[in-house]
């Protein structure tokens, strides 16, 4: 692609920082790394098939790029850095501008066994996303998670998110049913 946008028109502030962590509007050059993480972690994502480079190019060029120019985009995605090194991506998706709520999307690089890294990074990401949500006048942010690993929810709980919904047996992974939990925070 010749030029991928770098600024969201709907945002006055493009970069958000907290301690060593930072989010910037999602970068085109990060697309394959993100694709690999998504494919590694497919079982916990709303994704049915492994992504290919062609599909990822198309998604970035035809969907994500267009959101940059909209006054009220459906999603605002960021690359996520620790000490200027890419460690994940995410943002706000399914943004409901009328009801002023949005879903948090978050994916960390594939590093399944490093609980401390996960907890620290997700906690920082939540702080950054709250700043973003406040910036675009959201009233509420929420996120979905599968009850496969309870530890995944601790950053949410520690950041004062409340469990609002438990969708019983809502997701099937490797022939086992899992509950889907919705955690939310009013801003």
């Amino acid at each position: 692609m010749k030029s991928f946008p770098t600024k969201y028109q709907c945002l006055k502030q493009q970069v958000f920082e907290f301690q060593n962590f930072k989010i910037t509007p999602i970068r085109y050059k990060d697309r394959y790394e993100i694709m690999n993480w998504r494919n590694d972690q497919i079982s916990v994502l709303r994704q049915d098939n492994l992504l290919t480079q062609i599909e990822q190019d198309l998604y970035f060029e035809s969907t994500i790029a267009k959101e940059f120019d909209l006054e009220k985009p459906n999603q605002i995605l960021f690359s996520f850095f620790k000490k200027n090194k890419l460690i994940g991506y995410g943002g706000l998706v399914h943004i409901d501008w009328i009801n002023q709520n949005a879903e948090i999307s978050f994916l960390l690089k594939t590093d399944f066994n490093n609980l401390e890294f996960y907890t620290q990074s997700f906690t920082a990401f939540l702080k950054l996303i709250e700043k973003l949500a406040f910036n675009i006048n959201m009233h509420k942010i929420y996120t979905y998670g599968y009850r496969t690993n309870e530890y995944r929810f601790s950053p949410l709980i520690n950041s004062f998110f409340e469990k609002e919904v438990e969708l019983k047996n809502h997701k099937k992974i490797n022939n086992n049913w899992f509950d889907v939990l919705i955690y939310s925070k009013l801003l």
Partner: protein
Amino acid sequence: MIVTLEDIEIHEANKISKWKSDPKLSKIIMSSFKKTSVNEAKRWIKECNKDKNQILKGIYCKNDETSKFVGVARLMFINYSNLNAEFGIYIGENENHNIGVGKKAVKLTLDIGFKMLKLNKIYLRVLEDNKKAVNLFLKNNFIIEGCLKEHYISNGIFKNTLYMAVFKEDFK
């Protein structure tokens, strides 16, 4: 009176246009109010029918001589891996409220979901203060799975939204 679910014919778009353009109804069913033209309604019917993860049906009230299109029932986001779908329903014609049409239409839609599509779970979202609808779903063995606080704005006031669900084994 017999209640049936049938495919919505394109000529019924005028009624869909009328219902979708009704601000009172859009508040109850949590859709964003927008004046909808007949052509937009036609396009909406076509798009729903094209969507493989959706079943759109019209609710019809029939007697010996007449058949009247009175509302809409939908299974959306049908997920064949997780065996679930989201349910949406409304009765657009006021005169058909409170006479058991909704109850029968819920049962017929669940029949499609559980018997025809072999789903395991059907869920929905409903405004917490829409007591009539909540009670209707509770009577059909839906359970409340949680409450999304201040998730919907109506007349400038944030309102709570319930998540409700019924499982195959609880469907009678």
